[in-house]
């Protein structure tokens, strides 16, 4: 299952916050909104935190087979 897009989630979160702040909701409604808001907040936070830094370079051998290797900027640009 694909996780919801960060931008959309953030927008949803914003809407919930605004509803909570401006609408005269009942306590039950407020609690329900708060709960779904916190859920979306966690998703947003996770997608900001979870991804890993990974820089690879694609290499091809003489017969066109590809493999990837970690790319080191310093190594390749040194002496250039």
């Amino acid at each position, binding site marked *: 299952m694909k996780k919801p897009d960060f*931008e959309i989630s953030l927008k949803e*979160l914003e809407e919930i916050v605004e509803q909570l702040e401006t609408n005269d909701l009942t306590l039950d409604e407020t609690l329900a909104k708060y709960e779904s808001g916190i859920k979306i907040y966690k998703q947003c936070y996770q997608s900001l935190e979870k991804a890993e830094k990974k820089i690879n370079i694609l290499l091809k051998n003489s017969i066109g087979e590809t493999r990837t290797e970690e790319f080191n900027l310093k190594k390749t640009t040194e002496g250039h």
Partner: protein
Amino acid sequence: MLDSFLDIKTNQEPLEDFTAEINDKFFTVSEITRGVRTSLEHKFSNIGVLGEISNVRKPSSGHVYLTLKDKNSQLQAVVFRNSASRIKFELKDGMEVVSFGSVTVYEPRGQYQLIINKIEPKGIGALQLAFQQLKEKLEKEGLFDHAHKKNIPFMPKKIGIVTSPTGAAIKDILNIIDRRFANVEILIYPVKVQGEGAAQEIAEAITELNNYSDIDVIISGRGGGSLEDLWAFNEEIVARSIYNSKIPVISAVGHEIDLTIADLVADKRALTPSEAGELVVPRRDLLIEKTEKFKTRLLQSLTGKLRLSKEKLDRIANSYVIRQPFDKFNRWQQRLDDFAQRLNLNITHALNTEREKLSGIAGKLESLSPLNVLKRGYTITTRQEDNKSLRDIKNLSKGDKIKSNLSKGSIISEILSFERG
């Protein structure tokens, strides 16, 4: 010029008897042709010719045939395949050009022609013209249409970069991404970014990256350089690969002043490779800040609501009704009792009045009683049949029995006759 022909003639190897004798007197066609050719090649070698292009023909051989002309004359010309493939712009009739090459003779036909090695538009650089021509062509085809441009994802998880792994561009892009949103996945597809075959490699790389389903966006580009250096990004093959890419492409070629065809086709143009880094990822720190602010506001809203609700509850709890829940009841009951009492009094009073009234009526009734009337000597006569009192002779017949009630006792008689009263 004739001298040189004669020179050639004298330089010929002596041929056999008879033929040789004739040959001494006459030129063969081949000799003339070869002679003309040598002479022309000697005189018109590596020259530049000004003229207007007409009658361009491009057969499948790859050679290009054309006629150069001015007001008075025409010159047949040919661009052989190898040279033709190096011409960046498209040769069109009516175009004023400077052609570089040598005049020679096509011996099978005895025609002289200019063999063109290099051709340039007059008054404008060849590359500029090529750029203009391709731009017009692709524009007409709709490759720059805004409607076709895809959105750049807000927060890509994986970025493909098509550039030289040793160039300035990759360094700039990676630095900026690292500063803004370091924890992202990047796949570099190394390519030549200038020179022979560069355009092909760039186009292939973009096409191949489209096979990686997890790549959200592609950056293709290079650092600054001369128009020639950047030329690969003005090639049609690159333009088409960008146009056909299902993954959004950010083009980042050279500096702001270097507008390339790739920039025009791309879904987004970055003015520099550094800007590509800025366009491709958002600033993570700002996003975290924003997200945290929302969370704070969520909490504030909830606690605010809870506080308000509690206050409301307190207000209700402290209200008179809640504190003295039976008070009202008691008051109502009191009122009820009051009513009941008043009701009771009223009823008693009414009863008494009625009672008094009744005894008055009873006195009256007694005085009106027929018994008292009878006592005074009157009688009440009734028909015996139905015991109805009689006031009229109507409905009575002779022989009917009637009863006369006296004060004491009664008489039963039979009607003999009537007298009308």
